[in-house]
């Protein structure tokens, strides 16, 4: 298939005073701003997302040298402190129920966040699914890339265990099976633009926060426990919902390439959730038991951010639906 979809992207549209000035600086080399108190949440989240992307894909219209610009790093650190404070404020602390590996799946089952997969399974229409595919692409077109930053920071056992899972995420050496590439194929077959970041202007605060939290955990050694807890929670809530997504996509006659992406995740994540909890977090916590609280923090953050995203989308769709019904009646 030649070179495949584009890997380059341009600086997104600004969302407020901070991103106006920051993006100008990235494009022209003008002074880097700081984030004033009272900066809008979405403005701050987009600024942080763009700063993180300098370390991942970069931007076509920004000099690669800026990745390590000390003024940008200073702004990034300020935004990261705010994000960390917000995430910690939402967290009630670790459950007091014994060993992580023995209690984790029960803990996940007790968290009753909303399920977008259940909506797609039975109720969503095509436009809602296309919207979901677009805003989710910010995550799905990179998938476990932020977790790859964690590898060199681990002990021997947890490092080998994480690589065992990551090797599968990255297609076991076969680019055609690389998970974020499978998503790109599904997007293209569904008539969407699969270039990375193509739909960033549409991504709500909740999606930016999901991605920023993963990059925060991945890029900071002190968050290695949280990064792996996040991974465990993500994998443990993927297999069953992926099956519902599959059935919903088949119901709406989406192309086989997209259904295949979710089919792969039904099976792969039934393996990955066991590896993430037992061999990855299990060995991490034997090597560094003091990280247990951090692992729980990462796991909670993963489920909490997904719940916030799910509630946003369901509220949006259900209120649009009731507006349409009112219009029909009128």
């Amino acid at each position, binding site marked *: 298939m030649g070179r495949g979809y584009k890997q380059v992207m341009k600086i997104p549209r600004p969302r407020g005073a901070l991103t106006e000035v920051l993006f100008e600086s990235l494009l022209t080399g003008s002074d880097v701003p700081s984030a004033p108190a009272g900066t809008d949440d979405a403005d701050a989240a987009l600024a942080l997302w763009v700063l993180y992307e300098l370390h991942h894909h970069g931007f076509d219209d920004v000099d690669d040298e800026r990745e390590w610009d000390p003024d940008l790093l200073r702004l990034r650190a300020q935004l990261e402190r705010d994000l960390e404070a917000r995430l910690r404020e939402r967290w009630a602390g670790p459950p007091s129920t014994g060993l992580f590996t023995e209690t984790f799946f029960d803990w996940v089952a007790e968290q009753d966040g909303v399920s977008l997969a259940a909506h797609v399974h039975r109720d969503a229409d095509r436009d809602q699914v296309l919207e979901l595919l677009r805003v989710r692409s910010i995550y799905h077109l990179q998938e476990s890339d932020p977790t790859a930053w964690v590898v060199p920071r681990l002990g021997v056992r947890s490092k080998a265990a994480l690589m065992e899972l990551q090797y599968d995420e990255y297609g076991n050496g076969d680019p055609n099976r690389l998970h974020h590439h499978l998503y790109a194929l599904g997007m293209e077959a569904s008539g969407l633009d699969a270039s990375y970041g193509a739909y960033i202007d549409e991504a709500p605060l909740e999606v930016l926060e999901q991605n920023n939290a993963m990059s925060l955990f991945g890029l900071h050694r002190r968050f290695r426990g949280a990064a792996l807890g996040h991974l465990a929670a993500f994998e443990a809530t993927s297999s069953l919902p992926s099956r519902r997504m599959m059935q919903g996509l088949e119901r709406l006659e989406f192309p086989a390439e997209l259904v295949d992406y979710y089919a792969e995740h*039904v099976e792969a994540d039934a393996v990955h959730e066991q590896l993430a909890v037992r061999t990855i977090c299990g060995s991490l916590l034997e090597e560094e038991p003091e990280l247990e609280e951090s692992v729980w923090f990462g796991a909670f953050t993963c489920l909490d951010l997904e719940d916030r995203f799910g509630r946003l989308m369901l509220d949006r769709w259900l209120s649009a639906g009731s507006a349409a019904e009112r219009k029909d009646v009128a």
Partner: protein
Amino acid sequence: MSFDHPDAILCPGGPMLIRGNHAVEDPDGVPHGTTRPVSAVCRCLKSSKLPWCDGTHKVLPADLRPA
């Protein structure tokens, strides 16, 4: 120092993980080859993807989950 690295891991209440290449028969006697470095073999026999685990054990009542 060497570490334990078993070929198979029994997950309480869940699947059996197996490392490496194997052919696993489903209940109809049809062999399925592994496709990934670690595979999860269903032990509750309620998976929609037999012989592989699809996570269904998690929604079973505790007494129907594998030991």
